[in-house]
């Protein structure tokens, strides 16, 4: 029942900035979308999530074209860089939100959220509000919230950027494990080589609104196509 | 139990008033050198119904006596009397009834026995189209006629109550307004079918309302007193302006505005 392939081929405009991209993502092979600041990575995410309309093109997810669907109808999960948890809801209710929106009553949604809380080791934090969480905890809640809604695809925007450097390696390893468990196509936007190496199987490089290279991390290291890619693969630590 | 800080506030108000006055007066040629030598500033507190007449007379007086500045403040008689009792600086007080003047005199703040120099009577006013076809004051008792009166807290309201009592009429108005101009406005825009206002107010409204005179016998007469105040800082100039109001010029202006003579 879960869609297994995401195929995007579109051009979109945000203000005077034009992005053209075509790429495919297979379930089980997370795609890293990398590029310098202002390359259009977030624009691509906004298009996939439905927050920005395309000028032309299509987005196929599990065989259906979602390009004209409203965000809430796309079943595309999002994890934001700064997590954007609902500040007025507890951890439980944050995780249960997507379940409720799919039609469950409040009590049923909370019950359905429990396994997700367990899986992300959030049981002890169930009654807390977002401002009472550490960065790592908030990231786990954001991921659990996105996955509990049972999306067909998952998008992560710079998932490590808001975390303290000391905990990144540990959190990254946990995140990689969770992404392996997710059965749909996954796109991770990042400009960290460490994220790419640990989280993604394939890489798409976006520069000034256009794709400049694609391939595996090993292929990029072997033959960087642009100066940006060269700098990226040579810089192991951030 | 008076508030202690009031005299300070009053002084500040006076200073502001004087500052404003000297600023305004600087445009007129050499105000200090006048043929009659009369100079100074006169602060006049006058009833709202006197606005037009007193405004015109003050301008005339200032032309005759370039050394004198008249500062006028118009308002409800009760409010003006309350201001004086609370210590506001003023030279002359002109109210729309004797009762409010009496509160000032009783407080020992009048420098003379108040002089009654004008009268005013109520009149019936209706919108020009006269939608309820009102022809006399007795029709105010008809529940289908929407009536606006002043509240009894203000002189025009107590006058209206006295008039209706004398006519043995029971009237249920739709509103009891806070002042006579508000009654007039409600009639002008046609929200009510009739209202009781002073003849002078109906006069100043011109064609915007239709006047239906009330026979003298039934009507209640408001008597307008004026008095010099004991707190006056400029008694000579104040007295000169009072005399001007009571002169033939002043009385003619009052008559033209619809006031009667006592």
């Amino acid at each position, binding site marked *: 029942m879960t869609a297994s392939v995401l195929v995007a081929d579109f051009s979109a405009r945000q203000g005077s900035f034009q992005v053209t991209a075509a790429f495919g993502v297979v379930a089980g092979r997370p795609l890293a979308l990398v590029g310098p600041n202002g390359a259009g990575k977030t624009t691509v995410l906004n298009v996939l*999530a*439905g*927050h920005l309309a395309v000028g032309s093109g299509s987005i196929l997810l599990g065989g259906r074209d979602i390009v004209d669907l*409203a*965000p*809430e*109808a*796309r*079943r*595309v*999960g*999002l994890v*934001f860089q700064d997590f*954007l948890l*609902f*500040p*007025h*809801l*507890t951890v439980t209710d944050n995780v249960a*939100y*997507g379940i409720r*929106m*799919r039609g469950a009553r409040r009590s049923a949604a909370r019950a359905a959220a429990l396994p997700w809380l367990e899986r992300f080791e959030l049981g002890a934090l169930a009654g807390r*509000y*977002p*401002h009472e969480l550490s960065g790592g905890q908030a990231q786990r809640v954001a991921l659990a*919230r*996105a996955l509990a*809604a049972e*999306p067909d695809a998952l998008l992560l925007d710079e998932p490590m950027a808001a975390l303290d450097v000391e905990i990144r390696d540990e959190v990254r390893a946990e995140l990689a494990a969770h992404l392996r468990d997710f059965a749909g196509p996954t796109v991770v936007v990042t400009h960290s080589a460490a994220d790419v190496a640990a989280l993604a199987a394939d890489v798409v490089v976006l520069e000034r609104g256009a794709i400049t290279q694609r391939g595996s991390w090993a292929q990029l290291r072997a033959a960087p196509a642009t100066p940006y890619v060269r700098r990226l693969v040579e810089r192991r630590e951030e | *139990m008076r*508030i202690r*800080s009031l005299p300070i506030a009053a002084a500040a108000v006076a200073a502001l008033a004087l500052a404003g006055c000297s600023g305004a007066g600087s445009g007129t040629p050499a105000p200090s050198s006048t043929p009659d030598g009369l100079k100074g500033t006169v602060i006049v507190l006058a009833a709202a119904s006197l606005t037009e007449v007193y405004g015109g007379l003050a301008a005339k007086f200032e032309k005759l006596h370039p050394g004198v500045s008249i500062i006028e403040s118009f308002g*409800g008689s*009760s*409010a003006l009397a*309350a201001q004086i009792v609370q210590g506001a600086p003023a030279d002359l007080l002109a109210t729309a009834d004797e009762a409010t003047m009496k509160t000032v005199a009783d407080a020992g703040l009048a420098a003379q026995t108040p002089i009654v120099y004008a009268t005013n009577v109520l009149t019936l006013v209706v919108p020009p189209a006269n939608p309820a076809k009102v022809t006399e004051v007795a029709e105010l008792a008809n529940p289908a006629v*929407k009536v*606006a009166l002043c*509240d*009894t*807290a*203000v002189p025009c309201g107590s006058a209206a109550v006295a008039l209706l009592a004398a006519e043995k009429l029971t009237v249920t*108005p*739709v*509103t*009891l*307004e*806070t002042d006579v101009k*508000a009654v007039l*406005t*409600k009639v002008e*825009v*046609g*929200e009510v079918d009739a209202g009781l206002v002073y003849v002078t107010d109906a006069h100043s409204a011109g064609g915007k309302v239709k006047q239906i005179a009330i026979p003298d016998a039934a009507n209640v007469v408001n008597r307008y007193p004026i008095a010099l105040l004991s707190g006056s800082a400029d008694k000579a100039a104040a007295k000169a302006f009072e005399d001007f109001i009571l002169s033939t010029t002043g009385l003619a202006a009052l008559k033209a505005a619809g006031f009667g003579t006592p």
Partner: protein
Amino acid sequence: MRLSGPAVIIRVIAGLALALLVLPLLGILLSAPWPRLPALLVAPATLQALGLSLLTALISTALCLLLGTPLAVVLARSVSWPVVPRRLLRAAVTIPLVLPPVVGGLALLLLLGRNGILGKYLAPIGVTIPFTTGAVVIAQTFVAMPFLVFAVEGALRGADRRVELAAASLGASPLRVFRTVTVPLVAPGIAAGAVLCFARALGEFGATITFAGSYPGITRTLPIASYLASQSDLNQSIALALVLLVVSVAVLLGLRDRWLPGVRG
């Protein structure tokens, strides 16, 4: 720790501003007719005016919430509009703040009065608005609306709109996003706006007296009763003003702790 020169000047000026705001109220307290007060407060006229004021201000606040919250949303989103309609919208919302209330009341009369632009069509079907309690509510809603709209708009602009995007990606329709995320996020702003709105409606005078008139039990609210009393009995007026002051201050202080849990104020 010593304060620098500018800091001292700022504090002195702030003190003056505060004195200007508070000392007149002290004047009311000091000159209140305390021995007569209990009798004045429970006088039928006082209770009637107070009851009418509370009732109408509550209904007006509810109307402001109902109508003003969506307007605040539109206003907050109008940043993406062209300049001219955006400024016109903002000006329209601001008008009741800058218009003398009496003029506002006159405008309402010219619109909804029995000869008014709309009112003349209402009169034949038996609907007359002026001189009714409904007219009081309309006048209060007119003058109080901007307080609610601007408070809510400020909260909306301060809130991170991307949280709404997060909700949408979790399957929430725009209406549910508004109900389950937008409204709770701006709840403190809505509460603050409602309090200001209620206080403004409670103190409304000029538009009410002009549009609704003044009749005991129907349109004579506390401020009108207080003003009328000032024409004849200053003590009675001060007593009524005191009631108004106490209710307003109680409302302004009272809702502070009602913010939703988890939202840091």
